């Protein structure tokens, strides 16, 4: 039972970090990024590959974040002038291209065989069976740090400019703010946070391959952000708990429904899709968002 709870905390925590990065881009800056998973992948693979080649773990994680941040900035500079629907298409395309590169650059990433046997933080300290407990602790600490960072930034003058860029770019520009730069910054920071989540995911799974990083992961993050109320960091974390709580409790029920395992998995996803539809139709501000502060449906 404890193992079970620990794994929920781990998954919900890692995805909460992932979604917080997205919330920064969407809830605060109003940017539509459908390629968020690409940066999780970059973080995971960079950390794993570097640490497998002797780079100290902390530096490997940092390097992953910097690479992802740079890619996010590059993506922003290249595409932010596009209309939001083109931005959505291009960012999905970008994340598929990243996955495609990871799949086909086999000499580096071993393609679909994936990577395993890489170092994990504090591995030497505990017996193998107790490691997840330590990792859960690490994830919780990282989550709190990321949360604190984003909250400080959101309430700061930087956050104020970001919100003004989202609400009415012309106004912020007329007051001397370089709106474009702020959008790029939020993309870069959100991507770096996604990379951090990716590194943690790699530590948890002990084995990564490109199939861990399909577009559906991005949409999990979207559901968490919208469920919690776009722009609310606490809401996003709650959204993650709800989503993973849903996944785990339905796993319990698997024994009671007479469907094949793949069908139950699919049923779960159908419900996810329906939740998203119902949310967007009837409660776009999510569970904890406020209608006046609605980022969607303006």
């Amino acid at each position, binding site marked *: 039972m404890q193992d079970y709870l620990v794994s929920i905390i781990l998954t919900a925590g890692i995805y909460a970090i992932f979604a917080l990065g997205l919330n920064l881009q969407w809830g605060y800056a109003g940017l*539509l990024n459908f390629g968020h998973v690409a940066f999780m992948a970059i973080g995971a693979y960079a950390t794993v590959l570097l640490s497998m080649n002797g780079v100290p773990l902390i530096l490997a994680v940092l390097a992953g974040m910097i690479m992802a941040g740079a890619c996010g900035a590059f993506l922003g500079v290249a595409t932010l002038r*596009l209309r*939001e*629907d*083109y931005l*959505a*298409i*291009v960012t*999905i*395309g970008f994340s*598929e*291209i990243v996955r*495609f590169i990871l*799949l*086909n650059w086999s000499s580096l990433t071993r393609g679909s065989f994936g990577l395993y046997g890489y170092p994990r933080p504090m591995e030497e300290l505990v017996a193998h069976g107790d490691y997840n407990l330590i990792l859960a602790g690490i994830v919780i600490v990282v989550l709190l740090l990321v949360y604190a960072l984003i909250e400080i930034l959101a309430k700061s003058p930087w956050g104020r400019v970001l919100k003004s860029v989202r609400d009415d770019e012309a106004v912020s520009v007329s007051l001397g703010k370089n709106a474009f730069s702020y959008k790029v910054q939020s993309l870069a920071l959100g991507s770096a946070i996604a990379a951090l989540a990716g590194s943690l995911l790699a530590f948890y799974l002990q084995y990564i391959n490109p199939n861990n990083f399909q577009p*559906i992961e991005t*949409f999990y993050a*979207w559901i968490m952000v*919208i469920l919690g109320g776009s722009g609310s960091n606490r809401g996003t974390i709650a959204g993650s708990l709800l989503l993973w709580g849903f996944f785990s409790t339905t796993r319990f029920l698997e024994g009671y429904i007479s*469907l094949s395992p*793949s*069908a139950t*998995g*699919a*049923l779960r*996803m*159908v419900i*996810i*899709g*329906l*939740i*998203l*539809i119902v*949310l*967007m*139709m009837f409660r*776009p501000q999510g569970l904890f968002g406020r209608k006046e502060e609605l980022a*969607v*449906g*303006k």
Partner: protein
Amino acid sequence: MNNMIGQLVANGIVYGCIIALAAIGLSMAYRIMNFANFAHGDFLTLGAYLALFFAASLNLGFPLACVLAVLATAAFAVLLDAGIWKRMRSSGASRTAIMILSIGVSIAMRNALIIFFRPDALRFPVPVMESINLAGILLTYFQIGVVLIAFVSMIGVHTILSRTALGKSMRALADNPNLARITGINVDLVIRYTWMVSMGLAALAGIMLGLITHLNPNMGWSLILPMFAAAILGGIGNAYGAMAGGMIIGLAQEISTAFLPAEYKIAVSFAIMIAVLFFRPRGLMGGN
């Protein structure tokens, strides 16, 4: 005699026909409804699986099953419009909200198909076809059939668009939505027919894809990039542009395998799409 380039061109034409049919519907619906429908690929999948269901489970002849599948998919699209899209439109939801909703529709549809069928690859209950050899190019009868049906469909679309009142309304609404609304076109009716034609074509494209490859729940979703690339290349809202765009994308992808490993096909359509968005965002035949 082995005609490699000819083979690639032929494959490209076949593949391009499928993309073209799918892109027509995507392009017109995009322009008229003013949002990118990320569930479009899953309508291809739906059409293919419905054809399989009608043919295999209800034991109807395959051609009849296909016709029914196309009609059923079109009907489903109209139902979805009445229940979901229309409500979003009238509540003034933003383009972003509708796009996110379409992701939800996509996830739900794809996985519903996994529940009712199996997640593995399936084949249509049709005999395995031999290839014929035309001047060094190998083609199955299915591939030839795909091209023929696609061309017939495109002519059909052209006829609808140019000769019927409905088609002219669709073009007007796609060309200039605001103007069209003011001139008294029954917008709801036109939208309903647009969904029917778009998704009917998508279903047909899905069936054709299933014929020349196989069926799997991701078959339509995996084409999302080439379809959008084709629609954008042709110019959103222009059916003829989508036809041209689809053929170009199909040919480009197949011919690229002469120089690049086959896995790079997806990168080709992405590169074309990026190029269009940066240098000529309105596409080949698009309006503003």
